[in-house]
């Protein structure tokens, strides 16, 4: 058997509500040391109906068992393309839990929170240096939130110049959130087709005085560097537009090239991708935004500033787009990202990108010939295959499910949309050659199976606690909560 996948004892577990037993308690509070007060009865509710009643042990065992049904980066190889599932260093977790960071109220006086503010200021500076932007906000809570921030900034810039413009150009290799974000800023989306990479000619054809911005991802979702980016930025700028870059794929470029130097005006970072903060089962992430000096005035309020050796939050920014959330950002995630940057330094970050690109190209070389590679250009941090050469009527979904039996998290599937049956593999730099070899052997075995025994793919996964789930039924008859 190739890969680490095996079967073993798994423990069943009911829903937390089904464990409930009247009278059980899982909490302790000190005795109330003031008189018990009461609210007028018309404001007071009954007990929360059906709320669980459990002991502490019940709760601990319940969630521990649930955790065992999950697969994380610490469990094994997680080559989910575009998500940069690199190892999440443990010391970062310790850092975020330092009581001086974790116990501080966001509205405490600034003179008492100098440690937090200094960390934020230094992180702003470091991110600016890494991506080539003079100004950075740390407020957005996630990549899509950063995108919204960035596009609002672009709109604010155009409004200030007297014409908001109407359109945003989005190449077909862009992230799924890009069109939704443009729409939230009141823009019409104009798709631009590319043949693997976006050409200056294609942009020139669509570019006019009514285009507010071009949204690109570089490297794009095919893992290819947009090599005409500089010329593309010039074309957009010449007609008064701005260029937004989705920074999801920055892990290919650390210390090698900076979006700010390419002519990009606005970019969001994904600290939970490039800077190793954990994905948390779907968040919390953090999506800081870098901008050119000209756009700095529009950044969300407040911005952390340094005056002499004192740090403070600057709310007095009349041109600001406003705030995108309460308080100052996902501070706990910022601590983790700062710990990562301090651990690697400039040289380590560059090494991370180099090894990420080496790993992706190694997988590409080992699988090319067996799996169809729709674009021939040199890959950077990720590689996209298609399911064209699978046999036995097997498709990308079957491959993904079979990989689970071998003990791997599947790659991103059916994305980007420009590749039919896409299989998008991003190994990241934290994986060893042995892991990649084992994974590639599994991929090659599965391709063989599609020829010789396609049912192995069709029936997969068979080693998991549950087999394939009925997603159509779930959507047709939605049951979104437990009911007695």
């Amino acid at each position, binding site marked *: 058997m190739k890969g680490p996948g095996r079967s073993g004892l798994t423990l069943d577990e009911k829903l937390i509500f089904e464990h409930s037993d009247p009278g059980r308690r899982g*909490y302790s509070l000190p005795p109330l040391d003031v008189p018990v007060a009461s609210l007028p009865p018309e404001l007071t509710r009954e007990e929360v109906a059906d709320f669980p009643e459990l002991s502490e042990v019940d709760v601990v065992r319940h969630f521990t068992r649930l955790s065992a049904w999950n697969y994380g980066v610490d*469990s094994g190889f997680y080559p989910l393309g575009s998500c940069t599932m690199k190892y999440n260093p443990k010391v970062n977790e310790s850092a975020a839990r330092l009581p001086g960071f974790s116990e501080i109220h966001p509205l405490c006086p600034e003179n008492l*929170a100098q440690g937090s503010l200094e960390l934020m200021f230094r992180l702003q500076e470091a991110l600016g240096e890494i991506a080539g932007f003079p100004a950075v906000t740390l407020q957005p809570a996630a990549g899509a939130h950063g995108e919204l921030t960035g596009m609002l900034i672009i709109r604010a810039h155009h409004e200030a110049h007297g014409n908001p413009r109407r359109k945003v150009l989005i190449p077909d290799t862009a992230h799924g959130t890009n069109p939704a974000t443009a729409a939230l800023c009141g823009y019409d989306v104009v798709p631009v087709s590319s043949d693997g990479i976006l050409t200056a000619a294609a942009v020139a054809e669509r570019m006019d005085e009514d285009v507010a911005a071009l949204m690109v991802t570089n490297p794009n979702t095919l893992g290819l560097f947009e090599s005409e980016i500089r010329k593309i930025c010039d074309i957009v700028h010449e007609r008064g537009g701005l260029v937004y870059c989705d920074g999801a794929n920055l892990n290919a470029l650390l210390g090698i090239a900076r979006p700010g130097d390419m002519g990009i005006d606005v970019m969001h970072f994904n600290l939970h991708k490039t800077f190793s903060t*954990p994905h948390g089962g779907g*968040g919390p992430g953090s999506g800081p935004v870098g901008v050119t000096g000209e756009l700095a005035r529009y950044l969300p309020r407040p911005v952390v500033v340094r005056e002499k050796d004192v740090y403070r939050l600057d709310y007095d920014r009349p041109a600001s787009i406003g705030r995108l959330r309460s308080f100052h950002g996902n501070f706990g995630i910022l601590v983790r990202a700062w710990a990562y940057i301090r651990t690697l330094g400039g040289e380590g970050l560059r090494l991370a990108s180099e090894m990420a690109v080496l790993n992706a190209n190694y997988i590409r070389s080992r699988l090319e010939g067996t799996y169809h590679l729709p674009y021939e250009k040199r890959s950077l941090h990720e590689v996209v295959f298609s399911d064209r050469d699978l046999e036995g009527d097997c498709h990308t979904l079957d491959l993904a499910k079979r990989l689970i039996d071998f003990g791997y998290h599947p790659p991103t599937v059916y994305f980007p949309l420009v590749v039919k049956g896409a299989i998008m593999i991003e190994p990241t730099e934290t994986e060893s050659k042995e892991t990649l070899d084992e994974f590639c052997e599994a991929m090659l075995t599965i391709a063989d199976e599609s020829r010789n025994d396609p049912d192995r793919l069709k029936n997969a996964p068979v080693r998991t606690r549950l087999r394939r789930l009925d997603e159509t039924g779930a959507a047709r008859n939605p049951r979104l909560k*437990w009911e007695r």
Partner: protein
Amino acid sequence: MRYIPHTPDDVRQMLSVIGVDSVESLFAEIPEDVRLQRPLDLPLPLSESELLRELAALSSRNDAARTSLSFLGGGAYNHFIPAVVDHLISRSEFYTAYTPYQPEISQGTLQAIFEYQTLICQLTGMEVANASMYDGASACAEAVLMAVRAGRKGRVLLSRALHPEYRETVRTYCRYLDVELVEIPFGKDGRTDRLALEREMDAETAAVVIGYPNFFGVVEDLAALGEVVHAGGARLVAAVQEPIALGLLKSPGELGADIVAGEGQSFGIPLSFGGPYLGFFAASKRDMRVMPGRLVGETVDLDGRRGFVLTLATREQHIRREKATSNICSNEGLCALMAAIYLSLMGKAGIREVALQNFSKAKYARERIADLKGFSILHESPTFNEFAVHADEGAAAVLLRLQEKGILGGLALDRFYDEMPDNFLVCVTEQNSRGEIDALVEALKGGRE
């Protein structure tokens, strides 16, 4: 570098399989003129022990904030977090996983979110809850966008007693959309002015957003406001910045809310200088298909066993693109897990008891401060665990005086309300002992002598 496993020999072998002679040549597609021609200008790398020393020193610059007696609230609350919460969320099968796209190996996350959705429905009295959003303010903004979308109308009324940062966030989200935002004043009792609301309601009004409790800790008469809102054909949005209150107060659902958006930080999530927190979002069934965010639903596997999946994805950005219900992609999964664990531990009795402790202690503080010469309670209406105080000497002077004695006495309200230079917001939770409250009262008194 301990996070990168490659030995020089690995690199050589890998390059030879790829068929190139250097790592450098893998980057050949990046034109020279956009390359960085120098090393990144960042501080030199640190070993693990050096890093921890440096960060401990940095964090200790916050020590005075940490060790002060704190009566700060205003949207983030100092509640006790049972040790169990951090231990369980530190299971790396939870925190190193991503969005559960592959349900067969993500049942842990999926079932936990399903339980979280259920707990939020039970607390808010609503029919559906999503898998969470960024925080209370952004959840509130998403509620406004949803009401506009569902109602096909473009006017939204925001109570001026709604958290000012929530209002500002709503403004930012609506900045370039065709949405008119109007603020409704509050009366001397600290409650949203019902007559003003009636005057502002019109046929174009899609939603009215009311804080419950509101920014001043005041328990609004949500049912009465709801009648006005519904008579005008709009949706009532209840924004809950302190959800511990829902252990004691009638649920917004019971009082007629159509959407409940709120901040879940109180449910076991550290203060952490403002984030990561948890936006919770619940609605009625009729709006299920226009809701923003991820939803987890129950289903069965091929053998008929119960399991959970992400569902109703056709609302979302990766499918509907520019016509999606929101651009949100992730949720705050780990924070939702913290809330699910916290609420499971507290349970039926605990959520009631902790709410009652907050209310009773705040009431004790409120009454003691009301008796002080030079101080009065600004609003007569019932309040939950925070209340606005008037100080004859001015809020800034009082708070500074307290800070010098190691007490963070509350939040000066002129930060958000120009007309309130003499007012500050005091928050009391189960974490503040009677002795601490008495110390606050003594310290307040001190300035008058």
